[in-house]
Structures are given as C-alpha cells and as structure tokens.
C-alpha cells in the first residue's frame, strides 16, 4: 500500500490563496458607447496588481458590485496595455444594472482572470480573420488590439464587423480610425444605414456581415484562424460560409456564454455537457462545439 500523506496534502490545500475573494478596484471611468452598452474602466487599488494582473484576450473576470452580487464580464482591453481594465458591459441583469447606477470612483471587486482565453501563442505566425456580430465585438476587441500591438508576430489580419444600424457599432470611433491602417483590413457593415439628421455619416458597407467576404480576396484558408463571436443567427450564417470555404473545424474559434458563477470550475452552473465554460472555455473551437451535447441550435 502506498504511504499516506493526506494530512500534508489537505494542509497545503488549506493554505492556498483564496480564489473566491475579490480584489478591490475602482471604477475610474464610464464611457457610453451604444444604448445599454457602456465601456467601464477599472483600476486595482493595489498599484502592484495593476502591473501583475496578467490576462489573455478572451478571458473574463468576476465583477462584484458591492451589496448586489457578482457577474462574469469579458475583458475588452488588451494585456499589452497595462494599468486599466476595460469592460464593455451590457445592461442585462441585476448586477449589471447596479453597475450602471454606480458613480465613477466607486469601489468594486474583481477576481480572475478566468477562462482559457484565445490561444494567442498558437495563433502566432497565422493569418487571423476576426468576425464579430453585434455585441460579439466586446471580447474580440481584446484580441484585435493584442494582435495590433504584436503585429509582426501575426500574418494577414482581417476584421469583419456587422451590426443592425450605425448606432449599434461598439468602439465605432476606434474601429473607423483603424480602417486607415495599412496592416489591417477593417470592414464594417450595417444592415440599415438609417441616419437621423445630424448623425455621424456611415462610411462602411451596407449589408450582412457575411456580405463582407466579397471585399476580401485570396484568403489563405489553411493558414488562417477565424475568431468569431456574435448572436446565434450570426453563427449560423458565418459558420456556413467558413465551412464552405473549407476552414478546418479546429481553426474556427468561438466564444460561448453561460452562467459562470464561481469562475473556477466548481459551482456547476456553466457546464455544457461535459465541459465547464469557465475553465475549459469560454473560447472553444468549432470542433469542440459540435461535439458538445445540449448546445444551442444555430
């Protein structure tokens, strides 16, 4: 029989850092972007943490609004720009509603980062095709800026982003200014360019996000990794298009949403079949996704 070291094992496990306890952070700024989708900027109160909080694009944090509760929020900023964490938060549930009512300079709690994030190291050397629909831009903006900040480590970079109207475009100013960059093909589309008098004129395309494929030529499919995020109907059409172009199923990366309560793979709420969105995801390949039972229908 093997010798027993359970007591030592239990003691060492009882001494670990308590992952359930958030760090105090300050809500430094709120930037309205589109209706009920504001950008919230946070800084840790411990200045050291602002330097050491290392995360990957695609990861999320658990955000505590003190007195209300906790919610998982994906990080929209890039780890290449330290100091401030940016989160594009949709006003959706109890906690996010409370966040919208917080004055700037309030304290909140943050713990994380959680989730696998985009496999940026494996993506290096590849062409990257980022396709976003609606609010799907929030986690993908982190990936986009990460690649732009490490531009020479990646091949061709294409962004396709589609929304219903120009008023729904997240990070509109930022993305419009990126269209002038020579090392990025930035294509924006809206279904209807309805503009009320005095509105900022729409310079992008009109149509569905999948219509943008006609403007990009010669995608080197075997060497391209597609990162896609959007609503269910978006996935249906974008996946159809990518598969038609012969994208390999493990070269398509998707970001999934579930109820991630603990963030650390214990509470069970975010389980999809045999995977936990919070630790095995939220970034999954399309191959992972089609092998997941009880997935939402696209």
């Amino acid at each position: 029989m093997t010798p027993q070291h359970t007591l030592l094992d239990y003691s060492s496990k009882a001494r670990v850092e308590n992952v359930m306890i958030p760090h105090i952070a300050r809500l430094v700024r709120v930037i309205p972007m589109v209706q009920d989708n504001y950008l919230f900027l946070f800084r840790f109160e411990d200045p050291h943490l602002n330097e050491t909080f290392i995360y990957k694009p695609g990861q999320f944090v658990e955000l505590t609004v003190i007195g209300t509760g906790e919610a998982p929020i994906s990080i929209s900023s890039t780890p290449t720009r330290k100091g401030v964490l940016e989160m594009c938060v949709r006003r959706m549930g109890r906690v996010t509603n409370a966040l919208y009512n917080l004055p700037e300079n309030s304290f909140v709690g943050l713990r994380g980062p959680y989730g696998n994030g985009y496999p940026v190291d494996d993506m290096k050397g590849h062409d990257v095709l980022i396709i976003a629909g609606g609010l799907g831009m929030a986690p993908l903006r982190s990936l986009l800026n990460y690649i732009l900040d490490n531009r020479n480590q990646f091949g061709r970079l294409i962004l396709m982003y589609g929304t219903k109207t120009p008023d729904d475009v997240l990070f509109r100013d930022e993305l419009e200014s990126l269209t002038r960059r020579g090392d990025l093909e930035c294509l924006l589309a809206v279904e209807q360019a309805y503009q009320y008098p005095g509105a900022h004129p729409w310079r992008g395309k009109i149509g569905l996000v999948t219509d943008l494929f006609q403007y990009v030529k010669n995608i080197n499919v075997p060497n391209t990794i597609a990162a896609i995020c959007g609503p269910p109907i978006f996935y249906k059409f974008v996946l159809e298009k990518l598969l038609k172009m012969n994208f390999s199923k493990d070269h398509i990366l998707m970001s999934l949403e579930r109820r991630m309560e603990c963030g650390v793979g214990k509470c069970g709420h975010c389980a999809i079949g045999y995977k936990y969105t919070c630790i095995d995801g939220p970034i999954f390949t399309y191959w992972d996704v089609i092998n997941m039972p009880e997935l939402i229908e696209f």
Partner: protein
Amino acid sequence: MKILKLPKANFNKFLLGLNNYGEVHIPKKKSEETYVFAPMEDPSEVALEYLRTVIPPKKYFFKPKEALFKHSDGKNFIEHIEDVNKKLILFGLHPCDIHGLKILDIVFGTGYIDKYYFARRKNTLIIGLSCMPDEKCFCRSMGTDATEDGFDLFLSELKNSYLVTVGSSQGDDITNDMKDLLTEITRKDTNEYLKIRNERKKRFTLQLDISDLPYILELQRESEVWEDLGKKCLCCGSCSMVCPTCSCFNIYDKLSLDTKQTERVRQWDSCLFKDYAVVAGGHNFRANRADRVRNRYYHKQHGFVTQFGKPSCTGCGRCIQYCPTQIHVVEVFNKVRGED
C-alpha cells in the same frame, strides 16, 4: 498495514476516548429509518445499525450554506471560513461515504483549490465502520464497497469485537494512546472476518453494470427514457441534497438591514432546479425537466467518468430512498441499457 482488535466490551470507552481529539460526531437515530450525523453527547446514542444518514458527511466540509467573506465600510473583503479551527472526529462512515469524500477531494482539489473545503478537511479525523447492505445498496457495482484509504481508523465488525485498521499517522497516535483497549488479532479473527465478508458479498442484491455505460449514454442521448423520466421527476432536488458527491452551489450577496455589511454566501444548489442554467436576460439553457434530469444522470455516469476516470456515484442508495416519486437510479440505467 497495522490492524488491531477492539473487543466490544471496550467499545464505549473507545468512543469516549475519542473526545480527547476533538468534537466527536456519530450516526444517531432520529426516527424510524431516519439517521443523522450529529455531535455525540453520550456513547449510548451511537446507532451502529444505521445504513445511511439522510445527509451525507459532505455537510461538514462543504456546508449547506456558508459565508465566504464579509465586507463592511472598509475597503477590504474579509475572508471568513466557518469552523476553521474546529477539530472534528467523524465516527461511523461506511466505505461508500469515505469514497464520497474522496470524490469531493478530487472536485474541490483539482485545478483551482477550494480553501473552505480543505480548511475543514485537514482538521477532521475519519473513523470508518463496516456495514451489511440492504436492497438499495449498489456500492459493489461502483467499486466503493470497501476502501483501503481515506480514513484514519476503520472498524470492521466481528461477532464480539472490531478489527481496527490504522490508516494514518494520526490514527496510529490514537491506537497508541488507547493501547489498553486494544489487542492483537489472531488467525481466528481473520477467519471470522472472511466468513462475514463472504456473507456480505451474498447480501448484495442490487447491481448496476457500468462497463460501457458512457458509450451507451452517448448512443441513447435522444432515448425516450429521458422524456419519460422528465414527466416523473418533480425536480425537487432531493437527490442532489442527499447525494454524497453532488457539489453544485449558488453564490449570492446578503446585505444587512442597515445596508452597511455585505456577506458573500454560497449555498447548495441542484442542477434539477428550474433556474439553474438561466443567464442574464432570461434565457434558460435547460428549460425542460427532461433536459435537466438527463444532465444530472450524464454528469454522474459520463461527464465525471470522462474527466476523472470514475463515476461520481458511490452506490449509497440515498437518491433511491429519498426520491418522493420513487425514481430508481439503477432502473433508469437498466432501461437505458435495454435490460428492462
């Protein structure tokens, strides 16, 4: 391995002696067929005949409801671990419940470590006790009818004595302190143990064949068994609460009446509850009862097996005994296997 003998005449002294090591909890009879693990006030209370308590011993390590941290006017979140310095002796765990704790050790100790669980685990001594199965026990099929580890001491009942197996250094300390109550084992004791063990083997009537169950479940995902089960199951969550390996929880904040203090609370939850997979905005990823029931069964006998190489079921029979609509886990799987 050190094995000693405790004559039954010395048993009460042994139980009383355990008080020297911490607060002793024992199985007690609450009413007809209802047993609980509770603090020992007198050794005479011990219900040695018990087979299963309503709530398994997980309640000592993974509390039904507990505060994780507190926040008041200050800027800090103050860690709060209930019973962090309490020494506990759990007496009378049957092998299935010891295996239940071993499964929870995996759940709470893999990847991110749950400090709350292990803070209490390290301060607890486990003293196992042998048992004779009833018609709801299928631990033998789960490989949890015996255990070689996971206890500090284990008592195997013979006619006039107990064999005491020493499973840890702390268990060894106890047997050394109580050496006056213990004797050496003899050839006769071994023979008696073998006789009882063979008798026990014959008493198992319930069996669940799990040899290729994950694969069969994969094939039977759309089987009408789940739809039928969804009609019968009330989704009351009783089976989750009494399950020695169920470990899902909810997290929420509790605000004091003067709104100055917040407590982050976690509480046992069940994947059978309607709002379990509801996300902000109201979408429910498992809105149908059949989906939720299937999810629970698949987690136990497929997902956990894929993840950790064994089912998260100990065959303790609690879910069979306490289901208000008499859903029988073994019958469900037999149906899925086409053996019914």
